[in-house]
């Protein structure tokens, strides 16, 4: 009888929905500290180390692994065979993670130099077996423009810029530089129909939080934009995950072309540095004349790869600054009025991570929807990438954008290929779905434009 009563109670509670209903622990919006861009994974630093801080409160073991990953992230690799850290190339773009992500931020939009942060994706029309870009025979899907001694780079990338003037109605003018990319000295003939996409590595902090934004949240953004019918119509990318052998929603990469930090990091070791890992154990030059034939794969161990992944996952987000400044507040209001926040969605809630409380269930301010948007012909690269068309780009997170100049004064460049030298230039490049927002920004008076920029610099 007692047992029956208990079952009855559970049944009635379930029926009334009490057990099924989640407890709502969210505070009222005004109760949050607007400075906490990364929730509990926020760091109060605004100096040159602002992008490179470990989230606070990690256990001693986790701190140790973060430190191991930190060393791997900054480690220079050399030509194999070598006593340590061999395996560079034979064809590659750079020798370490840190050279393209200086101070865990960006690199410089040049190609072929020791501190160049650009990489070039290439493909030919068609799809590979997983629906991704079809590699160029003899080149693959990424061009390696450097090679170890005795080997040939796949090709060199030439960059030229052409200036154009954009003027506001008050007479103020801004010079935009439009890049042109051409390939020279290919080690073998390139097919005439190759497509290329030149991209600058983005900052890496906060990735652990972005990885935890639920897929349902991202999809809800797409549905909301569609329902609003204001010309903004983001779509999610679905891309191949080598770790699970399945298509997953894309979150990382400039076209949301990577599903996870693991794929991003292992892919960068493999394609950018020519370092094989358990996830990508075959040399990137396999089948090409640059292949070294050494039986040294994988060139980094699983534990080294995973430590690097953990390092990226546990980098904190710098806090916002000057949030009570009237100009910043005004700029934030204008940011919303201009509909910038339709794609650069200010807040999001991360899902649960039972291992890392600091990134689990956090209210964050990444200013992204992680969706692809048609950004117009001015920014188009003409190269599809899974569901991304040649004019689609993922909405980048804006947190930390105001600190780029301080983290590395030589590497504050914006947009997917670093063509914009200021945040204002970046806004003026917006087209396609963001065309209306750009036009509305251009109609603002000088003080209001300054307010928008000041707000962005507070992120």
């Amino acid at each position, binding site marked *: 009888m007692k047992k029956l009563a208990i079952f009855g109670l559970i049944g009635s509670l379930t029926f009334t929905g009490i057990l099924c209903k989640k407890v709502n622990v969210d505070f009222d919006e005004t109760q949050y500290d607007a400075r906490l861009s990364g929730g509990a994974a926020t760091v109060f630093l605004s100096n040159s180390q602002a992008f490179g801080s470990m989230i606070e409160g990690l256990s001693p073991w986790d701190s140790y692994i973060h430190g191991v990953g930190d060393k791997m992230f900054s480690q*220079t690799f*050399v030509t194999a065979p070598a006593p*340590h850290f061999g395996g*560079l190339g034979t064809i590659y773009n750079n*020798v370490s993670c840190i050279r393209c992500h200086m101070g865990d931020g960006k690199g410089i939009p040049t190609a*072929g*130099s020791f501190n160049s942060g650009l990489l070039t994706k290439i493909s030919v029309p068609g799809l590979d077996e997983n629906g991704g870009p079809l590699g160029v025979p003899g080149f693959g899907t990424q061009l390696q423009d450097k090679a170890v001694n005795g080997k040939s780079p796949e090709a060199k990338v030439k960059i030229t810029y052409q200036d154009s003037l954009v003027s506001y109605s008050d007479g103020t003018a801004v010079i935009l530089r439009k890049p042109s990319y051409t390939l020279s000295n290919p080690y073998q003939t390139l097919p005439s129909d190759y497509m290329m996409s030149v991209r600058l590595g983005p900052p890496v902090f906060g990735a652990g939080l972005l990885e935890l934004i639920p897929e349902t949240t991202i999809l809800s953004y797409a549905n909301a934009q569609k329902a609003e019918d204001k010309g903004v119509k983001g779509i999610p990318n679905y891309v191949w995950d080598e770790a699970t052998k399945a298509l997953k929603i894309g979150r990382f990469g400039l076209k949301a072309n990577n599903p996870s930090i693991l794929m991003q990091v292992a892919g960068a070791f493999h394609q950018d540095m020519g370092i094989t890992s358990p996830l990508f154990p075959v040399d990137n030059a396999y089948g090409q004349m640059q292949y070294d034939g050494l039986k040294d794969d994988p060139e980094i161990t699983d534990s080294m790869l995973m430590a690097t992944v953990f390092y990226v996952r546990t980098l904190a987000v710098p806090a916002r600054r000057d949030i009570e400044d009237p100009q910043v507040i005004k700029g934030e209001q204008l940011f919303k009025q201009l509909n910038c926040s339709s794609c650069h969605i200010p807040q999001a809630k991360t899902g649960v991570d039972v291992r890392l409380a600091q990134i689990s269930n956090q209210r964050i301010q990444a200013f992204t929807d992680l969706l692809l948007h048609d950004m117009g012909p001015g920014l188009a690269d003409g190269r599809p990438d899974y569901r991304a068309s040649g004019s689609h780009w993922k909405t980048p997170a804006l947190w930390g954008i105001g600190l780029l100049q301080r983290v590395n004064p030589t590497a504050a460049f914006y947009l997917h290929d670093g063509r914009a030298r200021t945040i204002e230039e970046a806004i003026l490049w917006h087209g396609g779905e963001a065309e209306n927002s750009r036009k509305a920004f251009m109609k603002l008076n000088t003080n209001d434009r300054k307010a928008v920029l000041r707000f962005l610099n507070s992120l």
Partner: protein
Amino acid sequence: MKLNKFAKTMVIAAMSGTIFLSSCDKTDKQKDMSFPEMETAVINDFVDVVAHPLYSKFEILAQNLKVAVQELSDNPTASNLDNARQAWKDVRVLWEQSEGFLIGPVDYLNYDPYLDTWPTDYQAMEALLSSNTPITVEYLTGLDDPENATELTLRGFHPLEYMLWGLGGNRDATTFTAREKEYMIALATDIHNNVKALKESWLPGTINFGEVMKNPSVTNEHFHSKKEALEAIANALITICDEVGADKMSVPYDPVPDSTLSESPYSHNSLADFKNNIIGARNVYLSSFEGKTGKSLSVLIKENNRSLDNEIKAKFDVAINSFDGFSTTFEDAIYNQRNQVQTTLDALASLQSTIGTKVIPYIQQYVKD
């Protein structure tokens, strides 16, 4: 009021103590300037007493290295090889001490990787030496062909160390080939060029980073306030303690000893490198270089927390003196004097922790502008 003898004695003792304490207080608290003035003086003296003189001497020693390598090339005797090796060690003292403040151009203009990239790339060096490419400083820096510039693993102190000592430190002066001489001269010239440019980047004429540090403001791209400048100096101390403790010493030591992972494995100069790193950090903390001193973080902290200042100074001494406990090279000690390695690691961790948990909060609490 009548006082007995004991009480009188106590009153006199107390009064004299008060007088003593007052005078001590006046001297130690630097009443000649306000706290904000002291903040300014600390930043100015860091630039004028430590940074400028250190970089100046660094350049002189880099020039000496270039001359010594040229003489070795012209006349490859054992004596000239010894001279070149000593010149290399001498300039390393200044480089390692300068790492006590990896702030500014050395960081964001990449002079650190230009000078000190590790590890060396044996395969690339051998390939270069066996090629017909003229090995000039222009070639190393990519000035003559930017698209085909060498990687930084072929530049800086460590390839030159490899040339001068060789694996195992048994390099014979008579065995240098013409190509090796060419490479050594290019390396030493490249080092000197970089050190000279680094020195000049702090002086009027180009970036003038010394003045950038001295003039924090909202329009200063590097330092919006004195607080940020002082934090940068304190953070530099943490950075070097961490680099020596958690990286340079720990990696070859833990978990399995491996001497090939040490910083200067050919010259066995690693212990001197580490010690000079921490001496450089102490120079910054005390604003002291080559016998000259100025207003320092030490003075600034003593103003409100004398025991913290004493604690930091004591921990610097313990850490630096711990290097004298080694009776062999670091490359040997990681196998045979592991307790001594651990003693130094513990001292560095303790020092780093104190700066991180007490000095940074102190600056944040007391520095308001």
